[in-house]
């Protein structure tokens, strides 16, 4: 039994163990040996067990622990190291892998035989466990001596593979696994003894390559090479490097290939970023994005060049339009014409093109959205031929939305185009100017029944509302609603007339009642209405008073139209004219011949208006009046008479009166509104801040108003001065740059 077993003497016991150890070594060396039987195993285990559980002085735990270690040390120094020392390069690596595998087997076996030591002894003495002792031996004797040589051999193979040679990847993986495993849980050996040098070598390798490529290759070719290298290095990691090396390795490669040469690459004369953009090389640009997005701040210069490119393309369009415009005939100078239409179209196309670039090549990156925006802001605020971009855009919309407009598009295309126009509006700083022009043209479309499609009108207002807010479109929406109400009102008026036959003026009258606040302001002149029309006005006024007591009607005759019959000798014809034109013509019912001056005084209109009127009736396509002398322009000494002989093949003709250019008035109105807006903004800011410095006040003012327009610094200064005189603010006594709110 266990109690009365014989004491094993150390030497004796060790002799027995040594046999087992030798057998194990032989098996590892490949010498002919039988396998361990279960009996062998148990005998070895039991021997150790017994020698450790014997009573002192025969408990040999310490000695056995030492001998365990020495077994490894002997084997390594006598057999393993010599065999490794005599080999080199790849052969040495193979031998190392074999020896390491063997060593692990040896550790496993021996630690099992000696297992009893692990149970109590090592804990009691705070010693490393058997497994660790075994590995440490290999580390301290073999790894310590050879790791540098191994490292160099591995790196050399890696460089060979980089040059295109086939290497044994499995071997490298096994070798690098040793670096990892020898750390026994830590990566410090892998990192310090291998990775650091490998990274250094990699950097040097790619530095050499890059210095050649940058001279020989075009930018796209270089980028292709760089991309391929990165791909291959990534694969390298998956084949035999440890995964933690990936980011560090790629960073080195990116640094040497891209960061170092970034500027030279982008600015390459005929193949750099500028050239790629110019030649629409989307594939190359996509690659450029992919590569430069990986290096710190890599995309900044690319976005900058993109912005420059788009700006110059846009500016070229502006110049093109300017040049075309300057070739126009003198009298058509102020009117927005074909060239400007084309210009807006081209800007839209430019935007479409480069937005696609931002989305596709540049993966929707904010830097590029920003670049696009800033580029467009630069040239979109340049006017063409005296018309601001706000006006051009409003005119463009007008052409799409009016009947017989120059753009003939399908419903879908119209929707799309309107969408894009609204997007362009975001780049224009004078949004309020656009709103005013738009409103003026909308009024014209609505009042002269020139709107092509109600749905489109509403649709663009919705889009504008979304982009610029409800305040932007509230008046315009009011205008559209007014028209609907006006139609209802007209129906009521006609009912009133049929119920009151005495009130009937004898002329068909249609009145459109507008809400003043919604519509652009129109100068109302005191036109001397012909008697027939005076009656109409009275009748309507009576009707309207019967409906609403507290409203005042202001008549805008300049917007009216009139159908009158001209009893010409050849035949009677119906003439569709403006109220002003009708009033002029009706003068000739009473007189055969009138001088310019007489007409002016009888109509009670301005010279500008009269000249336009008479021109449309005597010097244009249809000569309803005869002019003496028969020149092409109206002069104050001219005389006019009714042209009885006038005729046309049609029964009914429209005699157009070219509209006055609204540009000046619109700009005036907008400037006035801006002054109020600046005032309100300054007061709002000062009321909440109480005391504020000049610089700060200006800055906040600009920010507040930015959504609608970019206020001029001088203008703000002027308004501040004005508000001071009106006692809203005061200047600080000691600091002239400080303002105080006066409650």
């Amino acid at each position: 039994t266990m109690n009365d077993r014989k004491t094993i003497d150390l030497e004796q016991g060790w002799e027995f163990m040594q046999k087992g150890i030798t057998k194990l070594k032989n098996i590892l060396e490949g010498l002919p040996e039988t396998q361990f039987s279960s009996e062998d195993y148990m005998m070895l285990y039991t021997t150790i067990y017994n020698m450790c559980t014997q009573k002192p002085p025969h408990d040999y735990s310490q000695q056995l622990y030492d001998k365990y270690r020495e077994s490894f040390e002997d084997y390594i120094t006598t057999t393993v190291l010599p065999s490794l020392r005599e080999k080199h390069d790849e052969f040495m690596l193979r031998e190392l892998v074999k020896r390491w595998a063997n060593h692990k087997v040896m550790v496993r076996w021996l630690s099992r035989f000696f297992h009893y030591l692990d149970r109590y002894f090592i804990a009691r003495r705070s010693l490393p466990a058997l497994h660790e002792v075994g590995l440490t031996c290999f580390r301290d004797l073999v790894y310590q001596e050879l790791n540098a040589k191994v490292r160099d051999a591995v790196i050399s193979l890696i460089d060979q593979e980089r040059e295109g040679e086939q290497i044994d990847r499995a071997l490298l993986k096994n070798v690098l696994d040793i670096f990892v495993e020898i750390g026994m849980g830590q990566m410090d050996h892998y990192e310090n003894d291998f990775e650091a040098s490998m990274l250094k070598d990699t950097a040097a390798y790619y530095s050499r390559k890059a210095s050649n490529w940058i001279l020989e290759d075009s930018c796209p070719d270089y980028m292709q090479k760089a991309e391929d290298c990165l791909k291959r290095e990534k694969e390298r990691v998956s084949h035999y490097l440890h995964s933690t090396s990936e980011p560090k390795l790629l960073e080195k490669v990116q640094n040497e290939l891209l960061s170092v040469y970034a500027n030279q690459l982008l600015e390459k004369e005929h193949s750099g970023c500028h050239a790629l953009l110019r030649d629409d090389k989307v594939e190359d640009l996509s690659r450029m994005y992919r590569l430069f997005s990986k290096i710190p701040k890599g995309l900044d210069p690319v976005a900058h060049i993109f912005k420059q490119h788009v700006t110059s393309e846009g500016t070229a369009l502006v110049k093109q339009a300017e040049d075309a415009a300057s070739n126009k005939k003198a009298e058509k100078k102020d009117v927005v014409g074909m060239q400007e239409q084309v210009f807006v179209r081209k800007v839209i196309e430019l935007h479409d093109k480069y937005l696609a670039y931002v989305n596709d090549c540049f993966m929707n990156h904010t830097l590029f959205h920003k670049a696009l925006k800033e580029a467009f802001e630069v040239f979109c605020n340049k006017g063409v031929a005296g018309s601001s971009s706000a006006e051009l855009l409003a005119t463009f919309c007008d052409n799409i939305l009016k009947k017989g407009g120059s753009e003939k598009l399908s419903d879908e295309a119209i929707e799309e185009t309107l969408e894009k126009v609204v997007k362009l509006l975001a780049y224009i700083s004078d949004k309020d100017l656009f709103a005013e022009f738009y409103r003026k043209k909308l009024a014209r479309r609505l009042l002269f029944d020139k709107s092509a499609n109600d749905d489109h009108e509403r649709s663009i207002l919705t889009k504008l509302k979304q982009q610029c807010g409800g305040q932007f479109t509230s008046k315009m929406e009011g205008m559209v609603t007014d028209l609907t109400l006006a139609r209802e009102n007209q129906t009521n008026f006609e009912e009133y007339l049929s119920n009151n036959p005495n009130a009937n003026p004898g002329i068909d009258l249609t009145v459109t009642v507008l809400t003043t606040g919604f519509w652009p302001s129109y100068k109302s002149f005191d036109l001397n209405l012909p008697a027939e029309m005076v009656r109409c006005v009275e009748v309507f006024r009576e009707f309207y008073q019967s409906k609403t007591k507290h409203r005042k009607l202001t008549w805008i005759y300049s917007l009216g139209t009139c159908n009158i019959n001209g009893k010409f000798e050849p035949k009677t014809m119906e003439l569709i004219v403006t109220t002003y034109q009708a009033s002029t013509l009706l003068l000739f019912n009473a007189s055969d011949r009138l001088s310019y001056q007489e007409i002016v005084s009888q109509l009670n209109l301005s010279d500008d208006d009269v000249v336009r009127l008479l021109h449309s009736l005597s010097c244009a396509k249809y000569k309803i009046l005869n002019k003496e002398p028969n020149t092409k322009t109206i002069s104050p000494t001219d005389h006019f008479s009714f042209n009885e002989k006038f005729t046309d093949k049609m029964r009914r003709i429209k005699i157009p009166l070219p509209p006055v250019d609204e540009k000046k008035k619109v700009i005036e109105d907008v400037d006035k509104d801006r002054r109020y807006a600046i005032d309100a903004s300054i007061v709002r800011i000062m009321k909440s801040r109480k005391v504020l410095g000049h610089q700060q006040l200006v800055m906040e003012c600009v920010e507040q108003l930015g959504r609608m327009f970019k206020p001029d610094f001088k203008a703000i200064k002027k308004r501040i001065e004005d508000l001071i005189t009106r006692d809203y603010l005061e200047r600080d006594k000691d600091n002239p740059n400080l303002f105080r709110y006066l409650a």
Partner: protein
Amino acid sequence: MKKEDTVKLISAEGFEFVVDENAAMVSQTIRNMLTSPGSFAETQHREVTFPEISTTILEKICQYFYWSLQFASGKETEFHIEPELTLELMMAANYLHT
């Protein structure tokens, strides 16, 4: 019971106890031996002799193996040890790392 799933444990007196592999591996020592790399052809020997463990003790140990498996799977009963066997059993348990 299939031969592959069993182990034969032999006492000092030569008594053979054939037990389930799972039961035998309750002993860490036996487990280590059975799972050592390569050298044991699984179907070959699979018998272990314990020249220092008596039949009585070895029998008790085998009982312990089975009890231990049952205890681990939820059947929490008591394992009774005759007092006169205690010392030897503990020493054998130490040896077998059980």
